[in-house]
């Protein structure tokens, strides 16, 4: 039934178009081409441009204002507030320019439509005008460039020494996070040649910093503390995209990248603010990476620092989960490895306990 209606509609439209075509052909033949210039068609087209201008600018402002909350993504990072401000300043400048130029253009189009006996003005150039509209955009853009540069330099400057380091690894089609572990707070070395089915990080177990590193499939972050994401990829390009934090950085095989930022709102705060108890921060992949590109999601949990530290302390080291890999640890370091990975009590601490 539906397809019948659609095909009838299509046939009707085609028939109408064909009629218009025949009639217009006859008119051109009857009148001759010269009369066409100032004819009704010209007037209709001119008027339609005004209709278009009013309708499109009206629609643009109506939607932009009425649906602001739908397309404006809440921001939850320090630099994100800054770049959002830049975004909206640029928006203001360009909307003003856009509206003025559009109106002037469409009004000219309507006002100066062909009229019998009217003659266009011979006006080949005017150096003052041209100078003006070279210099004015140049100044406006210079200001925008300057503010943008400051933000960019700040965002890309080195992270603080005590920033919270987390490693993110992209692979087809999942994200994994590696945390430095609470004992040494440093990420162990890794090498892609050491990757196998279990050792997905390519963890180099001759490095003692690797022993307490742990893996997480959820990205936990502390609020109000600088975070340094170390990013790498195992197979093809991916891109870490944290939309609410205004963070984006490619994951490149063979070239580790990084991004530093500070989150300003915990997941809970955001839930309260939005009145949406199911809200969650998400990490998406923003660089085409194959079949499952659209599904490369990682959940993100932002907590108060205390809760975050507690979560970290509760995580098992990777080595503890995969004790087979102890045999890759050099003999001299085995003991330290067991202790750091939490597979054996730290003798130092048991002495302390005994002293109690």
């Amino acid at each position, binding site marked *: 039934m539906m397809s019948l209606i659609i095909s009838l509609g299509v046939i009707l439209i085609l028939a109408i178009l064909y009629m218009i*075509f025949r009639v217009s*052909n006859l008119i*051109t033949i009857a009148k001759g*081409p010269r009369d066409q210039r100032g004819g009704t*068609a010209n007037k209709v087209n001119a008027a*339609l441009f005004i209709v*278009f201008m009013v309708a499109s600018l009206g629609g643009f402002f109506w939607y932009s204002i009425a649906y602001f909350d*739908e397309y*404006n*993504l809440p921001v939850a990072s320090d630099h994100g507030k*800054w*770049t959002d401000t*830049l*975004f909206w300043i640029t928006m203001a400048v*360009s909307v003003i*320019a*856009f509206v003025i*130029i559009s109106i*002037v*253009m469409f009004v*000219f*189009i309507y006002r*100066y*439509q*062909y009229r019998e006996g009217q*003659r266009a003005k*011979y006006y*080949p*150039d005017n150096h003052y005008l041209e100078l003006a509209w*070279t210099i004015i*955009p140049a100044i406006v*853009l210079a200001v925008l*460039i300057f503010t943008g*540069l400051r933000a*960019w330099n700040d*965002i*890309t400057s080195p992270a603080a020494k005590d920033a919270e380091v987390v490693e993110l690894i992209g692979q087809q089609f999942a994200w994994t996070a590696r945390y430095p572990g609470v004992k040494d707070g440093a990420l162990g070395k890794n090498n*892609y*040649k050491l*990757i196998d089915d279990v050792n997905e990080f390519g963890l180099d177990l001759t490095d003692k910093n690797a022993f307490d590193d742990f893996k997480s499939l959820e990205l936990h972050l502390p609020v109000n503390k600088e975070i340094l994401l170390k990013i790498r990829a*195992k*197979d*093809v*390009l991916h*891109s870490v995209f944290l*939309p609410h934090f205004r963070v*984006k*950085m*490619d994951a490149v*095989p*063979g*070239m580790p990248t990084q991004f530093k930022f500070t989150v300003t709102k915990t997941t809970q705060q955001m839930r309260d603010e939005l009145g949406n108890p*199911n*809200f969650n921060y*998400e990490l998406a992949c923003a660089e085409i990476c*194959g*079949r*499952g*590109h*659209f599904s490369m999601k990682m959940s993100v949990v932002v907590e108060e620092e205390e809760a975050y530290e507690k979560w970290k302390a509760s995580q098992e080291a990777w080595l503890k989960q995969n004790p087979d890999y102890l045999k890759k640890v050099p003999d001299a370091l085995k003991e330290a490895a067991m202790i750091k990975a939490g597979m054996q009590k730290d003798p130092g601490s048991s002495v302390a306990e005994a002293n109690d």
Partner: protein
Amino acid sequence: MATTDIHIHSDVHHHDDHDHEHEHHEGNFWTNYVFSQDHKVIAKQFLITGIFWALLGGTLSVIFRLQLGFPDMNLDWLKPVLGEWITPEGKLDPEFYLALVTMHGTIMVFFVLTAGLSGTFANFLIPLQIGARDMASGFLNMLSYWFFFLSSVIMFTSLFLSTGPASGGWTIYPPLSALPQAIKGSGLGMTLWLVAMALFIVSSLLGGINYITTIINLRTKGMSFTKMPLTIWALFFTAIIGVLSFPVLFAAALLLIFDRSFGTSFYLSDIYIGGEALAHDGGSPILFQHLFWFLGHPEVYIVLLPALGLSSEIIATNSRKPIFGYKAMIGSMLFIAILSFIVWAHHMFVTGMNPFLGSIFMLLTLIIAVPSAVKIFNYVTTLWKGNIRFTSGMLFSIGMVSFFLTGGITGIFLGNSAIDIQLHDTYFVVAHFHLVMGSASFFGMLAGIYHWFPKMFGRMMNETLGSIHFWLTFVGVYMVFFPMHYIGIAGFPRRYYSWTNFDTFSGFTDLNMLVSTAAILTLAAQFIFLFNFFYSMFRGRLAPANPWQSNTLEWTTPRNPGHGNWVGEIPSVYRWPYDYSKPGSKEDYIPQHIPFSETPESNLPSENDLIKLETSNGEGKIIVEGGKH
């Protein structure tokens, strides 16, 4: 100038002797319509091939828009065409979705808006507007088309592979494009893509060198550079940009071929895929991106400049006014052409490239906005106090200015590296480049077809259908691309098969539906154009010699110019092409070949001084021409 000129002249004059009697010239079907060396025939070949590609590229986009707009729709009815690519549940295969996106982009950017646009109008207009009998080398010109044809055949074939065509995006970033284990399309599909593009580059170089040589050497008497129509200037810059940048893409593709097939590691390093660590070591995927965008950014101007040139001409003619700021227009195009080579890394702000480079490229990128703004202002001023006729060509030119404005302005956001962090690879970028590059160039191309159709086929297109086509397409394009700005600001990433996995991107189903519906209707409206085009080719009203009362030289040729374009002598040029509505003149236009001595009523004082030169010029010319015969 002299030597080449004489060759062509003697060559073609010989030809002309036959032409005088019967309007069409010697040769059989094959030499006249297939392996023709006549620039006008080659232009039409590019045009028809381009139209074919445009339809295909448009259809591909409608298929993937169905997926995005109506994710729950059952697509079983596409099975007869797409076969295995429709899953048993009646859905589009996610990998084929990427293949569609990739082929859509490749087809539109290269096959339609580069070959279809430049190929058509550079071939058609350069000899006709500068007053030459043909291109500098008709043979290379023919080769240029046939390389393009071969490239088209290969690219088209790749659509039917069982592993699918290339699927890594039109930017074919490695390692994805280098590793068949990463995506099926990187197997044979990618190989064919690379071969097709290599042939395409050969075609575009042959064409470009020819255009440049022709413009420099074969201008008719009096056609100095400062008297050239803006179309020719635009096509000239386009050709130069192409000749300088396409070889870099060729190099990039070649290295990729080595990495794919011969075990080198230009772009590959530290890769673990499919359960094994690859031996490739020390390469950099970023290197490829630098090489690609070194072509890629100039490419957007290769696509755009011809459209700007065509519409400058059409807007001046139909406003009955000189284009405002002729020199400024040339200056801005020159400036854009130069700057286009040093802004490429604005596509790479978040690749992990050195942030200092990011600062430099941001600076340069925002500078390029200045000449673009100048061009817009000059268009608008050209309309001021005009006497505007809304021919179909004019309507589409106005549409092109409107898109150039709407799409260009969002470049200011993207060029700002701090803002681009969020917007990069979202639908905001898709909205931006579809308006400024896609739609603007497309409208320039359509404007050109409507405007020069009478010269191409000797008949007029139907103007009413032209208007209907314009309004449906103009509104349609805005309905398709404008909403994408909102979707992009909301963070929706591009090249996504579906967004339902993410809470963050779960909204806007209504807007996506609107976009897809508008895309289908806009594509449907193109059939009005197709009907008009092919019907008018055979049955349209016969065209007068100069239907738009235009000043440029092509309108001094016979209704259906033969090979050699002018019967008898090529007209000389005495004035710039924009003497519209000159005070004092009888008509509101004075074609370029009318000497100042014939228009004392409208000459400016400085032009009266030129009259003396005209006669001495004229005498000189007769001697030269006599020598040649």
